[in-house]
């Protein structure tokens, strides 16, 4: 029986691996971006083996040195090696980006399913979403960090909360249109339990848009973390993160602009690569959305 269906099914379905290769090779910019991302992720994971110097050891005699053979990108105001700090800084940024994307997508998916399917929850939840979206996300994050104190955990919550309403809206609209489909109506008429309808018919419709949205959230979370740290509302300044390094470099900008500009370059290139990859995934998974380009 299963053999028979296999022969009937169109052979055009690509394996995930082929699909990934196709997305990565879709344009030279995306290819370069992906290579950069892979390098940054690997260097963050294996930071301890890569860095030439201890990122937190203070060497006052070597402060604010220009780039040299010992210190590839120079040193900061405490004589710490800038290159080593940037490599370690990737750990925080990537953890924040990935965690925020996963948490926001999962929370938004659950709330969006409820809102799209159950009327009275929709009415209440959408007012809350409107309210949350009226608060500028940086200000909201700043408020949370200033109340709860700066820690990786707080920063993560502060960055994730403003992202959730956007996911809720997206999932809700997908569910609302999927609900009208005959196969969902048939399932309702046949008496399938709500949970089963959601899992079998509604959730699969949200997967592609959520993957795309997830990459954008990852990029925006890394950006927000950098901004929060830069404003002094981020994680503990002793921990090297890209935002923290730049925040510390601010007062020495006229002496050694590299302390601000090198991490700035890295964070920009990483976010740019994630956004380009997100666009490529969108073009591949959802041609209709790509044509309209209205996802932000």
């Amino acid at each position, binding site marked *: 029986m299963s053999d028979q269906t296999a022969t009937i099914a169109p052979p055009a379905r690509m394996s995930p691996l082929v699909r990934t290769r196709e997305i990565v090779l879709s344009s030279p*910019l995306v290819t370069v971006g992906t290579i950069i991302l892979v390098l940054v992720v690997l260097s963050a994971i294996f930071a301890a083996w890569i860095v030439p110097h201890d990122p937190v050891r203070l060497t006052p005699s070597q402060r604010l040195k220009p780039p040299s053979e010992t210190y590839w990108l120079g040193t900061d105001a405490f004589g710490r090696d800038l290159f080593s700090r940037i490599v370690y800084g990737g750990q925080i940024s990537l953890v924040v980006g990935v965690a925020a994307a996963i948490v926001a997508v999962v929370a938004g998916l659950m709330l969006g399913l409820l809102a799209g399917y159950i009327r009275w929850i929709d009415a209440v939840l959408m*007012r*809350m979403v*409107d*309210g*949350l*979206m*009226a*608060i*500028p*996300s*940086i*200000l*909201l994050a*700043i*408020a*949370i*960090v*200033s*109340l*709860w104190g700066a820690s990786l955990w707080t920063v993560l919550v502060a960055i994730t909360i403003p992202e959730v309403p956007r996911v809720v809206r997206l999932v809700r609209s997908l569910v609302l249109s999927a609900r009208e489909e005959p196969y969902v109506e048939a399932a309702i008429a046949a008496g399938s339990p709500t949970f089963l309808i959601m899992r079998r018919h509604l959730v699969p419709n949200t997967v592609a848009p959520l993957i795309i949205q997830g990459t954008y959230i990852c*990029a925006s979370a890394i*950006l927000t973390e*950098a*901004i929060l740290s*830069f*404003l*002094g*509302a981020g994680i503990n300044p002793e921990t090297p993160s890209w935002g923290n390094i*730049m925040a510390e470099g601010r007062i020495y*900008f*006229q002496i050694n*602009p590299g302390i*601000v*500009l090198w991490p*700035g*370059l890295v*964070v*920009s290139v990483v*976010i*740019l690569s994630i*956004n*380009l990859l997100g*666009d490529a995934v969108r073009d591949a998974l959802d041609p209709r959305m790509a044509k*309209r*380009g*209205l996802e*932000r």
Partner: protein
Amino acid sequence: MVGYIVQRILAAIPVMGFVALFVFLLLRLTPGDPAAILAGDTATPEQLEAIRESLGLNDPIFTQFFRWVGQLLQGDFGTSILSGKPVIELIGDRMEPTISLALTTIILSVTIAVPLGVIAAWKQGTLIDRFVMLLSVLGFSVPVFVIGYLMISLFSMELKWFPVQGFRPIGDGVGDFLHRIALPTFTLTLLYIALIARITRTSMLEILGDDYVRTARAKGLPESRVLMRHALRNCSVPIITVIGIGFALIISGVVVTESVFNLPGLGRLTVDAVLSRDYPVIQAVILLASLIYVVINLLIDIAYVLLDPRIRYA
């Protein structure tokens, strides 16, 4: 028409109500004594007691919320911990730089981004289009303070065209005002162009595929007239919408830009408040920013009807 406007205003009230509830609960749900958080680390027991008294922390939480909203409606936003001044006064003093920066940015970026978006859509798939799209992805990716510091190092430190930091009120002379606000405006404009150019391009693309555009071309109208009279006019609604959406972005951008260029505006006030954990100030800035956001979106909803007769006020 009046009925429609009243209806939109009524719809905005629960949104603001939720913003207020959220800001209220944020403080109450923070572990620890809200009075101690509001009073700061150096408060004496008497000060703590006074704050507890004024917040009415022993009352039921609903009573507390509605009393607090009542105070807000009367313009009482509390007192700053850091300076001891009423928050509303502090905000009033800091409005000018922020409003100046927001307005110069919106004017400049709309002037640049709308033509860019139109050209990109008109020349879809060409090098110009690719360049505009890349520019817009860049705008979403480069942190605004990185742009700011690049501007400073290029235009202030190398070329010495503009001062590094500072602000002059417009009342002290327009030339000096523009000279000092130029770099912050350019910085923020790069971010905002990204958003507006992208949406303009997308809406133009949709409209350029419509029948009436083909008709206009077929009857031999010059291309400029087709673009301006037939296409762009019908784009006004999405473009106006994105200016509204972008307003939230601009508020966040202003906070950062002001702190890079040391402008004494609301953003600078907020950042100083964060560093000293001056929650009443942060709370007031959030409420104000959200109110402005809601009001602007309300005005945009009304503008729809005026701009596009196809939209009925139903």
